[in-house]
């Protein structure tokens, strides 16, 4: 807003918004959120069985079975989601249309260094980010590998008899340990990192609305904003790029 002088006579002000996530991406996120939440909710009591709340929940064999079944159903949903995501990556890669915005670059390291300087009061300006800043890339890749680890280890401990037909038996306890530890790692990560950045630092609901306002673009993704509006910085409100 600060840069734009709006003609005082215009009665309706158009602010541009910028598409950020497609409907499919938002659905993916919703599925991930929902299945992940259910998985955590049914997984953590199984991990922390000594807690009284878990013991209330898991007190009979039927309940243990039920909780495990819910966990398995959510696991299948998440696995299908992950497979779709992989498939989409491969498809776009084959069409040479995979956007590289999310790939980590040296610029991200420099941005992180810059951010650290800012946080330490060594400089007074925040780094200017592109379409995805380093924090968002960390989020994506952390969850990417987290889901990978959880999926692989989860299916190993779900079907130990099958997997030990061609894998050494030791992978089963290793998968169990990895599954139970990685779950907590992801839970802490989501709480500390992701929830902070999208709800506390600022309310960023673009994953649900699909769009960022011009103001948000300018503030948080300045480079991307400049790239999109190159040559037409002083665009008329409402104009398409």
């Amino acid at each position: 807003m600060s840069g734009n002088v709006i003609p005082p006579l215009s009665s309706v002000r158009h602010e541009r918004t910028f598409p950020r996530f497609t409907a499919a991406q938002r659905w993916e996120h919703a599925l991930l959120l929902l299945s992940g939440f259910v998985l955590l909710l049914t997984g953590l009591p199984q991990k922390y069985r000594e807690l009284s709340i878990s013991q209330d929940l898991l007190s009979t064999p039927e309940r243990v079975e039920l909780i495990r079944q819910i966990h398995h159903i959510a696991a299948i949903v998440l696995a299908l989601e992950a497979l779709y995501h992989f498939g989409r990556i491969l498809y776009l890669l084959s069409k040479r249309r995979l956007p590289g915005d999310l790939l980590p670059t040296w610029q991200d390291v420099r941005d992180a260094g810059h951010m650290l300087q800012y946080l330490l009061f060594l400089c007074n300006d925040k780094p200017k980010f592109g379409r995805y800043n380093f924090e968002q890339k960390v989020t994506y890749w952390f969850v990417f590998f987290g889901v990978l680890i959880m999926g692989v280890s989860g299916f190993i401990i779900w079907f130990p008899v099958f997997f030990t037909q061609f894998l050494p038996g030791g992978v089963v306890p290793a998968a169990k340990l990895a599954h139970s530890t990685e779950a907590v790692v992801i839970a802490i990560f989501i709480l500390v990192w992701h929830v902070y950045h999208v709800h506390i630092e600022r309310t960023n609901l673009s994953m649900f609305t699909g769009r960022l306002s011009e103001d948000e673009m300018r503030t948080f993704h300045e480079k991307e904003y400049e790239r999109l509006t190159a040559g037409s910085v002083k665009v008329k409100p409402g104009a398409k790029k």
Partner: protein
Amino acid sequence: MKRLRIYLIVTGVAVLLVSGGFAVSEAAAGSRSKSDAAIWQNPSFQAENDACLACHSQADFSVQLESGEPLPLTIDPQAYAESTHGFNAVTCVTCHSDIEGFPHPERTAKSLREFRLDYYTVCQNCHEEQFNLTLDSVHQDALAAGNTDAAVCTDCHNPHTQKRLTNPETGKLLGYARLHIPQTCAQCHSAIYDQYKESVHGKALTEDGNLDVPTCTDCHGVHNISSPTTASFRNSIPFLCAECHTNNAIMQKYGLSTDVLNTYVADFHGTTVVLFDKTFPDQPTNKPVCTDCHGVHDIVRAEDPNKGLAVRENLLARCQVCHPGATANFPEAWMSHYIPSPEKYPLVYYVNLFYKFFIPAVLGPMLLLVVMDVSRAMINRYRKKTPPAESAGELSQPEPQEAPAPKRTEPISLSEENMPEEPLTEETPMPEAQEELPAEEPPSAESEAADDSKSSDSDKEETSHD
């Protein structure tokens, strides 16, 4: 029968007279010098018993019961004197209290078993505690259900010969008593005894006289023996075995691990069983307890070539009982009570090591960054507040110094006129800023953004980015 009675009366009276004198002199001579001497010296005890023994010490003395079984009436005076009852000067009529003289009252028991079942309840007169415990036992349940063969007091403890079983000071079983218990139980449970005496525990007890190993009562209890087939007994088995197998003093003699319980509890099988034991112990679980893999009365050494679980084929066979499709690699999935180390289960060890470093090394800095971010934002906000002209809305913007305050007023005032009642929406860029704005201003700033994005939504919809 009549001749026998007359004979008995005559000899009885004679013996009574003679032995009465002996008894006094014997007791006075201090042949019993223990603490019970006071009772023992009571001449009436010996006199009373001798009166009975006058007849009942005859060899092969018995009467025929209606069932045809002979009811043996012979008491070995020597054995009785050595028994704990004899030692403690318990008179015959203490238990046989209905006998006051001769002729004895008539018996109605038709069989030997019936006679014993009629009689055993007298034990509670002195041994009330133990007797009451037996009322909760599986034997008593069986008896109540009509099984007259179920063990009663006198089946395990012959009242005429039973020696002292416990140390009077500690109340613990004496060594010979522990050694003897399996034979006592074997009177009925002989098939189990045959298994037990071949097991690692039973062999040590019966062949080597090793008192470290469990005898029947260590697992099953003594007088209130509970049913070993209930879910609650099964769920408690890990803790039963753990009483010895987590006792380092015993285990180190045999080079055995004391980690068996915690490694079991840490794994799939154990967590569930222990959970049930804690919450609803009566819930049956299909997860294995110690005995499902190691056996019950036939437990062998882990190294035993035929049944030992350290032999991979034997373990696989056990796994396949519950995991039918299990193949050769499968048993390795169970860590065999080992704690992972670079030698045993290295993969598990290194995964654990990885997370030990990964969690503090990655999540720690993330948390630190977030904390720093919060503090910088708060410090910015504090600094902003001091110069009063500044707009708080700019708090987290990159260049706070050059606040374009004059320019701002225009769009704000404009939108305020046009759409002041627009609701707040989630499009608001900086939520923390809301509270800081002066009361009249915030709706305008936000509604502006909200309205703008709404109106432009329609034109922008198709420019979706992939």
